[in-house]
């Protein structure tokens, strides 16, 4: 047993040290595996970044009210009478002024110009009052100031100014047939709100001729368990034909579709590509074994076992693919981690997110590389283990 180990060690180190002799072949395998890992990890980072942004939005103790069956904020409508009824709903936390923490918000879609393509894309313009930033936690004006009530000023999320043109602080932009002054930029902890433009709700209702209706109402509950009570309250009153959801659930449901789609595209693509890389790895390893035929047979003749030849070849294949996997992961991290992207979310408006590579994802990429290394090594290793002794005397 101990002898086998010594043999394995000897053969492995000999194989690994001989890699430079087959530098280009080995390098081709490494780069092929790196590219495959890179493609997989880019997709995983995209899917993860989008999901983190959307899923991280909303709190479990914030209730969101939408018109029944509307599904999205832009399709919803809530009347002034309904807002009045909600003010008396049970379980809603009180603000410092003793009034319920309720935020009635208008949601409209306007055009922004994407920096990447120069084309128009749908941006959410949210009409809010002073409670919007209190009901939600973690909204912070990071540059400039909040808009003044009743004036055509607006604040933009960090994502908006990153991905869209014309939202420079202090500048003027035309939205909804009105000139607006951009007075502030806000940080919302990397959530969907950072993809939004906020302005005064009363002003917007006037511009859009929406009277006193809004799209949604958000309420800070005393605690997350109060949701049931609110749902019962809404169901009991025929005037309140509303869907009541925890804000966190509302956003979690929106994250699934697209992030799953990216995953469903990413994995099959990476697997298909790995078959290509595998073919390359097999060629390289077979060639390596073939070029060592005489050497292996000679070692067999002087008493080395087949196991040593097998393990030595496997180790070489694994090393090449693991280096490839690591290079792919590093490359993806350097090129794509933190890169900002925008796509159409389920509200039919843009969601800005950042690609995000995590250690868990890197592990998946390295796993794929190891599988390629194992599969690419096993057959050539098998051949190496069965080299006939006669091969030692054959012409190369």
């Amino acid at each position, binding site marked *: 047993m101990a002898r086998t180990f010594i043999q394995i060690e000897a053969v492995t180190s000999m194989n690994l040290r001989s890699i430079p002799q087959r530098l*280009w072949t080995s390098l081709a395998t490494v780069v092929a595996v790196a590219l*495959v890992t890179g*493609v997989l990890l880019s997709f995983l980072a995209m899917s993860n970044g989008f999901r983190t942004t959307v899923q991280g939005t909303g709190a479990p103790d914030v209730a969101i009210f939408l018109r029944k069956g509307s599904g999205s904020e832009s399709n919803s409508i809530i009347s002034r009478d309904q807002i009045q009824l909600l003010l008396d709903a049970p379980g809603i936390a009180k603000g410092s002024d003793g009034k319920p923490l309720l935020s009635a918000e208008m949601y409209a879609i306007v055009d922004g110009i994407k920096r990447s393509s120069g084309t128009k894309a749908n941006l959410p313009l949210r009409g809010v009052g002073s409670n919007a930033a209190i009901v939600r936690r973690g909204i912070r004006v990071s540059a400039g100031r909040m808009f003044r009530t009743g004036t055509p000023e607006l604040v933009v999320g960090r994502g908006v100014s990153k991905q869209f043109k014309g939202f420079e602080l202090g500048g003027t932009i035309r939205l909804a047939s009105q000139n607006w002054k951009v007075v502030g930029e806000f940080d919302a902890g990397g959530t969907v709100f950072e993809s939004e433009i906020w302005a005064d709700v009363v002003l917007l209702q006037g511009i859009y001729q929406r009277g006193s209706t809004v799209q949604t109402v958000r309420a800070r509950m005393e605690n997350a368990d109060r949701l049931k009570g609110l749902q019962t309250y809404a169901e009991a009153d025929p005037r309140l034909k509303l869907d009541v959801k925890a804000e966190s659930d509302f956003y979690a449901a929106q994250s699934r579709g697209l992030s799953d789609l990216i995953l469903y595209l990413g994995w099959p693509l990476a697997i298909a*590509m790995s078959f290509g890389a595998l073919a390359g790895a097999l060629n390289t390893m077979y060639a390596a074994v073939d070029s060592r035929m005489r050497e292996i047979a000679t070692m067999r003749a002087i008493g080395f076992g087949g196991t040593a030849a097998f393990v030595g070849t496997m180790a070489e294949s694994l090393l090449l693919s693991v280096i490839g996997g690591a290079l792919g992961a590093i490359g993806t991290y350097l090129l794509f981690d933190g890169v900002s992207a925008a796509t159409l979310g389920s509200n039919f408006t843009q969601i800005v997110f950042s690609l995000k590579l995590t250690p868990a994802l890197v592990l998946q990429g390295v796993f794929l590389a190891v599988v390629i290394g194992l599969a690419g090594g096993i057959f050539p290793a098998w051949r190496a283990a069965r080299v006939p002794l006669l091969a030692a005397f054959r012409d190369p």
Partner: protein
Amino acid sequence: MTFFDLVRKNLFRKKLRTVLTTFAIFVAFLIFGVLATFQNALNSGEESASADRLIVTNRINFTLSMPISYVQRVAAVPGIKLVSHANWFGGYFQEQRNFLVAFAIDPQTYLDIYPEFVLPQAQRDAFLHDQGSIIVGKPLADKFHWKVGDRIPIKSSIFRKADGSDTWDFTVAGIITPGKSDVDVNFVAFHYEYFEQTRTFGHDTVGWMIVQTESPKVNERVAHAIDAMFANSPFETETKTEAAFNKAFTEQLGDLGFIVTSIVGAAFATILLIVGNTMMLTVRERTNEIAVLRTIGFTARRVFGLVLGESMLLALIGGILGLGGAFAFSFVLAKLLAGRLGALAFSPGTALIGAVLMATLGFLTGLLPALRAMSLDVVTALGRK
């Protein structure tokens, strides 16, 4: 033995290696073919757009509506042949995840302006005469098993009827088939009149207008005239060509072109390495016999051709198999994605680009090894063991 025979025999001498290399090429071309098909489907709105059609939307954002009176006013603009209009319905079938692209349209003008939406004459007449009827795209009819004459309930996530219900019942009058392969018919459409009579809000407005001009040459003038007519009104308009409108719409999804190009690029970089490397290996192993060939009278140019021919043949076999696979796969995808993604069809353009890629791949991977084989010093090579 002809030259080609020699190339072929050489290629299949190491069967396993050739099969593996061919497989790698196959995979790369499969990826290319499938992604190109995807991209075509996403761009189909732009490709199939008619040069003489303009889309008029609300200037603030295309999801906002405009007064129906605009239709008559636009029709009076010189240079316009036909005006139609449509309204987004926010439709779904049974459950919200069965999302439908559903429009309330002005039936006669809409079908006249879009001749590529093909309906049998009898079905067309039936649709025009029955206000409560609907026409449905073929992929959707297949997916939900709708037949002509069926009563189907379509729900709206936006509109409500007077009784508070969100469900509209329609009779299927016809099934729309695409007039060309790149035409997307993943939608349903019904009478605007019926919609107007039954909805509870948004009266006397339309979502957008479709304008057919007398010729693409007058597009710019007509677009300008339309937008100028409504400037400074509460409902300003923006008029674009259909192609520009569709392109902007696709761009909303993200920089898909970049993603597709990167993946195909990565896949081809991979096989370029693998195949190039294999060819190098092959030539090195054959050093001896190439020297023999030269000795028995093969010119350097023929040896060059022999090696390059082998890599070309390899790229051709793998490439054709890969494109064939993508062609077959596109049918499966079209079935799977019915109702979600437009005209999913493998296009001749994709095949053409594929052919160019094959030639390039074959040339690039064969060039270095072929040069090496050509420039072999015969005496040294013969002596080498």
